[in-house]
């Protein structure tokens, strides 16, 4: 392999845009991995619903969760993502106050959704062992809670770092990456709500 000399870089320092692009790509791959995990869980729901093994997807006489509850939680997440996006756009215009406000509101919304998620789990009219449907609902609710926890960490960091003046109109790639993740978990919650809206199995069990 023939080589020649590249101009030495001062202190091997890379420009912010290059680092930002690299991180965006890396986080994109992490999201692909997480999406694969979410897809496996949604596939499990649909697969077990479709099979209805021994007619025990939803055993006779057991209750199901209200469909609207998952949609309400997903809507809360979507709103929080939109609010954060508003802040992210603000910092790109150099308005760090808007990012502080949006991060704070976004975190509060995440907390509300998180409490809602715990309430949903606690009020499921079935136990996890009731049947495959019940198990799947607990699984998806737990996964949503896990997503919320991670995003809460990121949101708090955004609020704190924005408050400390870590971001500016030229150095804000971290905010963009957090927005990417936030948007993904909101989308995952929508997919989850959509999947769990279909409860009755098309298969005749037994």
């Amino acid at each position, binding site marked *: *392999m*023939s*080589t*020649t*000399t*590249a*101009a*030495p870089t001062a*202190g*091997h*320092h*890379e420009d912010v845009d*290059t*680092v930002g*692009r*690299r*991180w965006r*790509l*890396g986080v994109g*791959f*992490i999201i*692909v*991995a*997480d999406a*694969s*995990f979410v897809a*496996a*869980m949604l*596939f*499990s729901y649909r*697969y*077990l619903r479709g*099979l*209805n*093994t*021994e*007619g*025990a*997807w939803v055993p006779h006489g057991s209750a199901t969760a209200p469909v609207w509850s998952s949609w309400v939680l997903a809507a809360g997440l979507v709103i929080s993502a939109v609010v954060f996006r508003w802040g992210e756009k603000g910092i790109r215009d150099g308005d760090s106050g808007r990012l502080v406000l949006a991060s704070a509101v976004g975190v509060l919304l995440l907390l509300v959704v998180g409490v809602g998620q715990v309430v949903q789990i606690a009020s499921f009219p079935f*136990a*996890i*062992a*009731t*049947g*495959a*449907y*019940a*198990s799947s609902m*607990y*699984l998806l609710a737990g996964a949503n809670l896990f997503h919320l926890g991670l995003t809460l*960490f990121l949101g*708090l*960091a955004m609020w*704190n*770092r924005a*408050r*400390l003046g*870590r971001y500016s109109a030229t*150095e804000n790639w971290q905010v963009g990456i957090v927005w990417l993740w936030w948007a993904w978990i909101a989308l995952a919650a929508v997919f989850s709500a959509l999947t769990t809206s279909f409860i009755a199995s098309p298969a005749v*069990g037994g």
Partner: protein
Amino acid sequence: MSTLNTEPLLGIPAAGGGLMRRLNVVTAAGGGLVLALVGWAIARHFMLADDFGPDQVTVITMVCWAVGFMAGIGAFNGPIGWLRGRDLTSEDELFLAGKDQGIRRYFRFTTDHKVVGIQYLVLTMVLFGVGGAMAMLIRTNLISPNSNFLSPQQYNAIVGLHGLIMVIATIIMVTGPFGNFIMPLMIGARDMAFPRLNALSLWMIVAAVPILLSATFLGGIPTGWSGYAPLADQAPPGMDAFLMTIIIFAISSAVAGANITTTVLTMRARGMTWNRTPIFIYGVVASVGLAIPAFPMFMASQVLLGLDRTMGARFYIASGGGSPWLYANLFWLMGHPEVYVILIPAIAALMELTAVFSRKPLFSFNTAVLGIVGISVLSVMVWAHHMYVSGWAPNLNGAFMLTTEMISIPTGMLFLVILGTIWRGRIWTRLPMMSTYAMLWNFIIGGITGLYLSDVPVDYALHGSMFVTAHFHYTLMGAGLTGAIGALAYWFPKMTGRMLDERFGFISFWLVQIGFNVTFMGMFAVGLAGQPRRVYTYDNLLATGNFVSTMGAYAIGIGMLFLLYAVFSSWRHGELAPSNPWGSKTLEWTVPNPVPLENFEVLPVVTSDAYGYGEEPFEPFEGPPRPDKLEPAHVGSSADEDSTEGARP
């Protein structure tokens, strides 16, 4: 890569980093033990009331161990500091990179890709050592029909543990050591894209190893490495060790995959177009690129299993509306791409070194790339050939048979590339090249028997037999591990600065390869005769074949000990290696030994491909280097290819 920034990243105040400087593997083990004890005590107090109590206690203890270990090694320092708005200074980053820390940097959360590569190499060797010792126990038990060397329960537990340990070791054996140490050098980068994630992925696996080995004391893994449900639902708490290991390993793999892929996509040297990118890089990217979507599927299968076992969920219990087929699908959606996650980088490493030792350009580079892409695409469309006899979707058997047989086409392309490279080359038969020959022999056998097994009627006859065991050992060990050993022999001078002892290397090679073929040819024979796998005894009619296999296995074991001796003695006392003992043309050989912290003083600009062999006279390196050849006078900074001449013997 910003480890030499003279200013704190983004101009942010220093983090201080006092605690960070005191953490190492001892504090990690301590943190893990303390938190595991706390978790165990709390879980035991609150959770032993129902049938799932032992599994709940086991899982909580293991989660606490992993969290405590990672906290103790310093994995959370960065994120927590970031949350607090305190970023690392360039001094902190240099500390994390292991600057001036000598051997201690190997026992810390060190971010330098070369340190991580060596850590992976040692970890892989440890895993192979443990898994190989278990293989010896298995074969010793099978030396005669009723040896009673192991009890049936012990036998099952060891077979499962051996399988999982070896699968993990083979997955990381190329992309871990060489993907980390060599790949950034090969593309002309100063480090990986995300150095801290690099260290994170390594230490997560380290944290998982004690969890996996704890299965020995928790009833073992009686399901084999596939962990099929519903057997896995009923297994003792050793199964919790299995699922926790998989979950941790899957997260580690996703992180490592994102890191390696991003590094290759964004940090290749200027001028390194895709046509000038070495084939090994394609192999590594294909491997981790497959792992990114595939391993989370496996992780999901284990999360569901964990909920079944600890909370009474019904995912795999048919009476509760679940289905073991769900497990089989999720498992094999990962399980078959995983074969190529192992194989592709190993074969790519062999393609890389075959060109060097044939002194010829790699034959049909584009065919090699097409082969790797073809295998990667097809590998996600073949998973159900493992499930022909399960009764799942019999109408799809034909389709899966077709896709499985089709995968032999791109695989054959890689064979043709290697054979075409060797053909009429000026072969320089050194230890690395021997692995190419061995791989060609072994993989032909492994590949053709794979074609038999992809055929539905034949699979109905042979499924679950020793024939299958022999087949996948021919592919994963005969091709994969052989490729990894070739890679080790090839890159050992760059990684350690010393030449690998070829006398012991050749003794090891012949013992391992002859032993390997004796072992698994014998296994093909007893498998065809009807011996099932994972059963601790067999009929007297199969005694000869099993005895032969066991003798072959002992030869492998002895051969591996020779290799181990060669590696460690060479590492300590081997002759000093010149910076480019093989006369290779890829970038990693243009840097001096030992490789500087930041790899390249000035980043290279690539002006031609990596395979221009045979264009100028080459004098093979056959002995100790002269002192004036130990360090190249100037590396990677002259205006043309002559820059490597100073390094060439």
